[in-house]
Each structure stands twice: as C-alpha cells, then as structure tokens.
C-alpha cells in the first residue's frame, strides 16, 4: 500500500475502460437487456395501448397464453395511449423495426396505409388456430378487409356510456322498477334529471363528469349526439360535405349547457370526473373501459348507452383490433406465434369482456357467463346503435379528424366559442380535410383513400 493514490487511479482507469468497452459491446449487440435475457425459442414482441383496467385483463390473458405455450416468450409493451402510440407504431414500421404484433383502433386501419405500414393476416393460419370469419359480426369484419385482404383482426367493440350511481339516483327518484336509470327523451328531460340528481348529491361533488376539456371524449360525445339527430358527414362518394351546422350547433349547445348550468365543474374535467364519481357524484360519461375501475371501487352503479335525448338512440363505438405492423421479412416462427397469440386472445375474450368491452368473437356473447356480467348486459344493446366516424382515411381514434375537430368541440363546451361559430368552423375543417390528399398514397378520400 505504498502508493495508494496510484492504485486508486489505476483502478478508476480500469473501471472506466471496462465501462466504455462494455458499453460499446452492448451497443454492438444491439438487442437490449431483455432480449438477451430471454431464453425462449420464439419471442413475440407485442405492442398495445391498454392501460388501466384493460391492462389488468390483457396481462391476465397473456399470462394464460404463456402458461399454455411455454415455448413462446411474449414480450408485451404498453405505450402511452393516443397519437404517441400510432406515431411509434408508424415509425417502427417505416424504419423496418416493427414489433411482431400490435393493437390498433379499427377506424385507424384505413389511414395506416395497409400494405405499407401494415401486413395482411394469413387467414388460413388464423383458421388453423380457431378463428373463422363466420364467428364475427359481418359489418365489423368487412371494415377490417381492405383490397380483399384482412388487415385487422377485431377483438372487441367499445362504446361511450352514461355511468350512474344507483344510491344517489334512488334518493333522487330517477330509477325505474328494475333499478335502472330512467331514459330521458329530450334535452330538457335530461337536464331535469340532472337537477333532481344535484339535489341528492353530497357537498363538494359535481353532478356529472364529461371530460369537458378533453378533445377526444368531447369529439366522441359529439359524434354520438350528432348521429342521434340523424346528422351526416359526407355524401356517398366522399366528394361533398353534408355536415349540418344547425344540428351540430344544437349538439354543441347541449354539451355546453352541462358546464354553463354548473352540472359539470370546470375544475374536474379529465380523469377527475371518475374520481368524483367514485366519491359520490351521480353521473359520469366514460368509455366502457371504466367498468373494472368502478367495480374495484365497489361503487353501486349502472351503465347505459349515452342518453337518447335527441330521439334515436346512438352512442359512439370503436373497435380494438390486432394488426401485423409491416416487417420486410414477415413470416417464420415469430409471425406464426403472433397469429397464434392473437387468435388465442380473440377466442378467449370473456376475460376481456370483464373490462367492459363487447367481444367481437360472437360465440362469446351467447355464453351464460357473458350474460351474467353486470353492467355489461345493460348496455350490450349499444352494439345495434353504433355511432361511428365517417369511413375516410383521416378518421379513427385520435386520428387527424379528431385532432382537428375535437378542439373545436371543446372550445364550445368550455364556452370560449359560441356553438354556432364552432359548428361553422367544424364544417370548414371538414371541407378542408375532404380535399386533403392522404400523404401515404397521394389520393383524397373521394379518390379512394377510403377503401373500406
């Protein structure tokens, strides 16, 4: 220990050198620690966007799959939901580093450039694993077929719901004999109900949470009520905008009134609406994916499709679907395992229904186990009254349409724009989008951007 200083320096230099060498070596290997550690024969990289209750269920289903197929290592990654997810998926596919399996909203498939960013499913291989076209709602299946090829394997239909607390509504006298919420037939009836409910609501709680400053939810609610009014978007050839600004203004006025009349507290937009609901607020409008959240909070609640205040029932509906992001060398063991995994999840979707979603695989719907699920059985009718976005390349969950028009709806709901002005802005945005070429193939919606 004569010259400890030198030894320490040598040690540090050695350590530093090792770190540098190790880092370069690791970078050269290039696969990341997780892939290095994996010992399985086949590794399926699977990206999804399921958080919250859906996350629990998806993981449970993956674990069941893993238990049955020990030779396949499923590496699932949950990415931030919304446009970041689609951005990541598109960039990975464009850079030829896509995962083996992905999840998308069905409405996004058309705009996601099937053939370039997505690979088609091998229908024969799917049949081998038990998935047949006959077991799906034909309209749903058709939406997934583009140019004769199946580009998406539907997993579910999910809808926007009106959640209500039985305990509060009972006090307010708003339940029918079966303990279900009364169905309002006009906006005035609905606001009368809200007024009653407010009287029965505890202190410091809002009456309804409706994500008034969230551009996605507000857009979905708009689509639902606009469809209730019988509003349309474009003509059949996708050349003319048929958007009705009067109807739109009525919907915007309706949404606005919740905030203006103080039923929705401006401070509790967003996820705080669900927290308020758990704490005793009587209503919240949420996606059906909130079912497990409220179940685990042991709230006494029910759920119906959004109230049919404009006469005809309709509520916004979308669909989660499995896709094969484009890989230059698709095929082989990982690809087969991706088919097997997707087929397994789709056919074992009862677990998925616990997350509030309506399974796309119809044999599931007729099982006794599914029928016993509550409140799922209360809103399964929503499947017959779907309000969907127009079938054009710029539509789909968090797509360009929602990104451009959603904020306009929000500006009306929050009161920073008048409903009439907002409706006119929506129309001009729709006109602009209809004339816009899909950057992936240089064609407008009318020229066949919407093969669906």
């Amino acid at each position: 220990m004569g010259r400890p200083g030198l030894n320490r320096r040598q040690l540090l230099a050695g350590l530093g050198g090792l770190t540098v060498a190790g880092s370069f070596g690791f970078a050269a290997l290039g696969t990341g620690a997780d892939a290095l550690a994996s010992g399985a024969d086949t590794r399926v990289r699977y990206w999804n966007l399921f958080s919250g209750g859906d996350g629990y269920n998806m993981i449970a289903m993956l674990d069941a799959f893993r238990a049955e197929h020990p030779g396949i290592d499923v590496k699932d990654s949950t990415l931030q939901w919304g446009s970041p997810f689609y951005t990541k998926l598109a960039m990975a596919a464009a850079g030829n580093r896509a995962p083996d399996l992905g999840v998308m909203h069905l409405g996004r498939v058309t705009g996601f450039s099937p053939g370039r960013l997505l690979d088609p499913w091998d229908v024969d291989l799917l049949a081998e694993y038990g998935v047949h076209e006959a077991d799906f709602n034909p309209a749903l299946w058709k939406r997934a077929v583009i140019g004769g090829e199946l580009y998406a394997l539907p997993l579910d239909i999910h809808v926007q719901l009106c959640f209500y607390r039985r305990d509060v509504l009972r006090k307010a006298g708003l339940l029918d004999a079966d303990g279900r919420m009364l169905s309002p037939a006009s906006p005035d009836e609905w606001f009368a109900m809200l007024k009653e409910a407010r009287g029965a609501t505890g202190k410091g709680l809002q009456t309804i949470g409706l994500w008034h400053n969230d551009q996605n939810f507000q857009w979905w609610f708009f689509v639902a009520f606009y469809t209730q009014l019988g509003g349309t978007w474009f003509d059949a050839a996708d050349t003319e905008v048929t958007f009705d600004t009067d109807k739109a203004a009525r919907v915007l006025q309706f949404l606005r009134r919740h905030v203006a009349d103080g039923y929705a507290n401006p401070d509790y937009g967003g996820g705080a609406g669900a927290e308020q609901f758990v704490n005793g607020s009587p209503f919240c409008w949420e996606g059906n994916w909130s079912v497990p959240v409220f179940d685990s909070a042991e709230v006494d609640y029910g759920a119906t499709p959004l109230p049919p205040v404009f006469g005809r029932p309709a509520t916004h509906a979308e669909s989660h679907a499995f896709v094969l992001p484009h890989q230059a060398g698709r095929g082989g063991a990982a690809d087969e395992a991706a088919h097997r995994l997707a087929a397994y999840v789709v056919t074992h979707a009862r677990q998925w229904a616990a997350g509030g979603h309506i399974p796309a695989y119809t044999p599931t719907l007729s099982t006794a186990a599914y029928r016993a699920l509550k409140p799922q059985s209360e809103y399964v009718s929503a499947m017959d009254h779907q309000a969907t976005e127009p079938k054009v390349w710029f539509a789909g969950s968090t797509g360009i349409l929602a990104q451009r028009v959603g904020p306009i709806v929000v500006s009306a709901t929050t009161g920073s724009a008048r409903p009439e002005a907002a409706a006119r802005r929506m129309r001009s945005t729709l006109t602009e989008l209809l004339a816009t070429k899909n950057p992936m193939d240089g064609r407008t919606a009318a020229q066949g951007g919407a093969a669906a």
Partner: protein
Amino acid sequence: MTTTSAETVLRPARAGTAAGTATVRRGQGFQHGGWFVAPFLALFALFVIWPLLRGLYLSFTDANISGDGASFVGLDNYREALQDPLVWDALGHSAFFTLLVVPAITVLAFLLAMLAHHIERGTWLWRLCFFLPFLLPSTVAGNLWQWLFNPGTGMVNHVLGLDTPWLTDKSYAMLAVVVCTLWWTVGFSFLLYLAALQGIPAHLYEAARLDGAGAWHRMVHITLPMLRNITGLVVALQILASLQVFDQAVVMQDFGTGPEESTRTFVQYTLEQGFTSYRVGYASATSIIFFVLIAAVALGRMWLLRNREEGGR
C-alpha cells in the same frame, strides 16, 4: 501519459531558442491537419449537413414517412405553411413561452447567483441546491410538475390555497409549463452568473470601497457592467433553447396539445405533421422555416456582439 506532463513544464524554456520553428510547424500541419478533423467532419456531414440538405430537398416534395414515391411539388409546402393558421398558432405559443421564460430566468438566475456569492458559508451547499433540478431529465421534471399541478391532488394549489386549473385551462396551461421550466433550468444560468461573479477581480471592489462607494453603488457601477457579457450569453442561450421547447410541454399534457391546443409548440407541430400525419415533405418545410428563424436569432446575436465590440474600441 502521466509522466509527460512533468516534461512539458520543463520544455518551454528550450522552445524559444529553437530556430526555424515556423517552417517545421507549417510542414507538419499541412501533412496531418486534415486527418485531425476528418472523424468529426465525417459525423458532422452525415448527421448535420446531410439532414439539412435532405430536409431542404424534401421540403419541395410530398414525401411521406415510408420514404418512397415522393414527387416534386415546388413551393407548395411553403405556400401552405405560410397560410396554415396552426403554424402561426404554434409559433405564437413558442414565442409566448420564450417571452415569459427568458426575462424570468435571467433575473432569477442573477438573484440566485448574487445570493450564493454573498453568503460566506457553505457555498457548495447553495450551489448544489440551486443547481440540482437541472440534473433531472426533462421528462421527469415534466411528470413531477404535472403531479404538482394535478387537479385535486396537486401540492401547488394545496400549499398556496388556490383552486387554479393549471393544466386544464388554456389561460394557465402554458404558464404551468413556464413554471416547470424555470424550476428545472434556472440552475444552469445560475452557474454561469456565479462563475462570472467569481471572476470579477476583487481589487475593483476594494478600490471602490476605499473611495467610499456604498454597496448599491458598487453593484451598479462594478457588478452589473462586469456581467454585461454573461447576460448577453444567458439571454441568447435561453432564447434559442426556449424557442425549441417541446419536452416539458408534451409530458405535462400527456403528449396532447393542451386545453384548446394552447400548449402546442412549433416543434410539436412539426413532429405531428411528420410522424402522426406522415407528411414528411410538409414537416421538412416547416423545419426549414424554423431553421431560418433560429439562424436569424443566432446571427442577430453575433451581429450585436460585433457592433458592441467595435463601439467599445
């Protein structure tokens, strides 16, 4: 290598006596100079110059993210960009952010540096405290402030007894990003100021004190003039960095554009166009516009500096 440092201390004595050094140097340099800069230039050409030229080329096409089938569209992208209200909105948001952040950070950094400089005990502790947030990744800072501003559970409103909808109201959302940015980055400018303060020769102050100048007088006539250069640097660096704001803003709004799109910055809009709408050509055009803007700011500063130097002589 450790032994040579001792030699180098001895060598200068001999250097001066050497004859013909100029020719030696010229000869040696000419032989090898290019090789010294070659590795850097290779990387620089690949990852700076080439993307710049490529961006310029792409901005005249309708290229998409898949990288094939682009056709020439002339100035269409630029024409569209100049008429795109969202481009101007996004630019406005970035400019608004810059306008708030730059003066605030400059003043705060200066005050913190004065404080740390004048407390006689525990300088290292103050330095550590004031600089610490800068060591966090931007996304962590963003998440942290998202949590602090969270409705209901947020500590900021709780401590201040407020009920402000920081993240959900368009008149506060950008302000929340500004607060986060101040907290996160003030430490860097603080260190620059502190270093500059410590670099002011002590004899200036002593002379002033002998002349009977008070503390205020010393600050106005010695400290502030001596800090003029560093202030110019801090302001310039902050302007350039603030115009390029992205990370905190998107993280605090969950990668959205904020209430009524009030926090969509220019960088975010360009990335949306390129990676969400797949319009690489258009995004390249907005990138080039942004590059020109940034370059104008940087060149403007150089021009100011040169003018000042010439005026000083």
